């Protein structure tokens, strides 16, 4: 009996997104306001209806653009009167903020809650701030202090360690890995809002520079300036609102492995298997019921890991599953990352996937719309010691 899990009582009722760019013409707060007002209007609500507010991870004011806007700045700018609010950094990846909202709505603390994620890394990088917490000559208190002395300054070097172990254990070949980037670029070419829309060939991928082996530049997502907002409401209220009801059918949010970037229990699979198990244990749906998968692709291999850990293919067989790219294409048996993903549409940091899942389920995908009236989307976020997942279902 899986019908009593409380996430089933929650629906996504509106979505919004700012212009996504490699250099914004307005501030990070301005982008956030665009996304949030867009989501409120999309749901047919007004500012006064918003009584819950959440974001991931909360403002980090180090100039890096990773999280320039938090709840106080947005609440004050929009003069919102909320009954519940929280940011959530130490949680099951970027989806942790969604899961908190689900809990708050179920607890009756609010009725209509906004979750937002804003990044301003394109502009920050033009100012030379790659990673504000790791400067040579400084002593770091960072949770990455075990990496810091060794030139593992950035995510690509840290995460390459996991992917290298996956390659070692699975035997996946570079031309198979390439399909994640090629698929993303193909889908992005049909998405007017994507950053990179010029088709990418296998030869271009294979000749592209290695950043930190085995990760090439096309395996890395693209930093952007932009904001995404998701509006959640109780399911019974959603039935009377503007958009067709999309309810959360199950979530995966656990932390059963060591949550430590240098001490992962299973390098090749990371934290994903138990999170995926939790998600499947809370639903009557199974992998074959999924019409679309919007898989985290901060690095290409995260999507490869999620294909296996969600059970869309067997462990260490994702290379065969994605070979040639047909199965994961828009016309394939399991379209993935339909807007181009973070690799080509831009690093909306998992909130791009949520936005795109709603676009597809509401039939707004235009040139990239998946045919056949998709009903079930599986979503995932993060890699390393963090993972989060949920199923979104159109009624």
């Amino acid at each position: 009996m899986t019908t009593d899990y409380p996430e089933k009582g929650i629906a996504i009722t509106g979505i919004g997104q700012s212009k996504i760019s490699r250099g914004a013409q307005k501030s990070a707060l301005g982008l956030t306001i665009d996304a949030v007002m867009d989501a409120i209007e999309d749901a047919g609500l007004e500012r006064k209806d918003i009584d819950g507010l959440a974001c991931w991870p909360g403002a980090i004011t180090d100039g890096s653009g990773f999280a320039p806007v938090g709840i106080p700045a947005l609440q004050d700018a929009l003069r919102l009167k909320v009954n519940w609010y929280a940011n959530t950094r130490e949680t099951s990846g970027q989806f942790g903020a969604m899961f908190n909202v689900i809990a708050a709505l179920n607890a009756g603390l609010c009725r209509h809650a906004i979750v937002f994620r804003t990044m301003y890394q394109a502009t920050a990088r033009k100012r030379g701030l790659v990673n504000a917490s790791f400067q040579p000559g400084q002593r770091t208190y960072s949770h990455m202090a075990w990496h810091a002395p060794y030139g593992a300054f950035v995510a690509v070097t840290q995460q390459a360690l996991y992917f290298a172990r996956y390659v070692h254990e699975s035997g996946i070949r570079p031309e198979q890995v390439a399909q994640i980037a090629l698929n993303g670029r193909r889908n992005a070419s049909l998405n007017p809002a994507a950053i990179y829309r010029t088709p990418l060939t296998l030869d271009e991928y294979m000749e592209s520079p290695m950043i930190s082996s085995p990760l090439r530049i096309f395996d890395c997502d693209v930093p952007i300036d932009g904001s995404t907002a998701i509006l959640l409401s109780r399911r019974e209220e959603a039935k009377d609102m503007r958009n067709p009801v999309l309810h959360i059918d199950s979530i995966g949010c656990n932390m059963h492995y060591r949550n430590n970037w240098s001490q992962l229990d299973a390098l090749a699979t990371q934290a994903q298997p138990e999170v995926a198990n939790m998600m499947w244990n809370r639903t009557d749906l199974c992998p074959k019921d999924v019409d679309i998968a919007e898989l985290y692709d901060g690095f290409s291999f995260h999507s490869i890991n999620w294909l296996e850990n969600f059970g869309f293919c067997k462990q260490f067989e994702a290379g065969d599953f994605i070979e040639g790219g047909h199965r994961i294409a828009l016309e394939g048996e399991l379209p993935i990352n339909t807007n181009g993903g973070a690799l080509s549409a831009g690093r909306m940091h998992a909130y791009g996937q949520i936005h795109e899942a709603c676009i597809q389920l509401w039939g707004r995908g235009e040139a990239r719309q998946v045919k056949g009236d998709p009903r079930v989307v599986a979503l995932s976020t993060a890699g390393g010691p963090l993972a989060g997942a949920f199923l979104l279902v159109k009624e």
Partner: protein
Amino acid sequence: MSSQPSEFPRTLPALDLDNEAFWTGGKNGELLINRCDDCGYYVHPPTGFCPSCESRDVRPQPVSGRGEIVTMTVNYRAWFPDIPVPYVVAMVAIEEQQDVRLITNIVDCDPLSVEIGDKVRVRFEQVEDLWIPLFFPDPEARP
């Protein structure tokens, strides 16, 4: 075990009561890993609690300095201007206990020659008041 001035600009960890032994043991040529006095389990990162038997009698103990590369990457991008590339970042499991894994650099060899599964040994590089554990290919294990 030698130490030598660094060519490689290193961001340094701030010391506290738990991690100080790890980052300074190299002064005496020792790689110090916290170990439980009661059951022998190595606890890393260092804390004063044994997750195996719940003992609080956990303290830094020298290990052999031998290990195996569990995973590694060759980093080609210079994230700061003075960093010589390419360089190897690896995760090394200590010989004494497979689940104690140290992020480190593999040095004194061609970065492109390093592979998962290679046996390595520790040496230390002094930077200010810290002795940074680095690993090099075990000469007895490689032809």
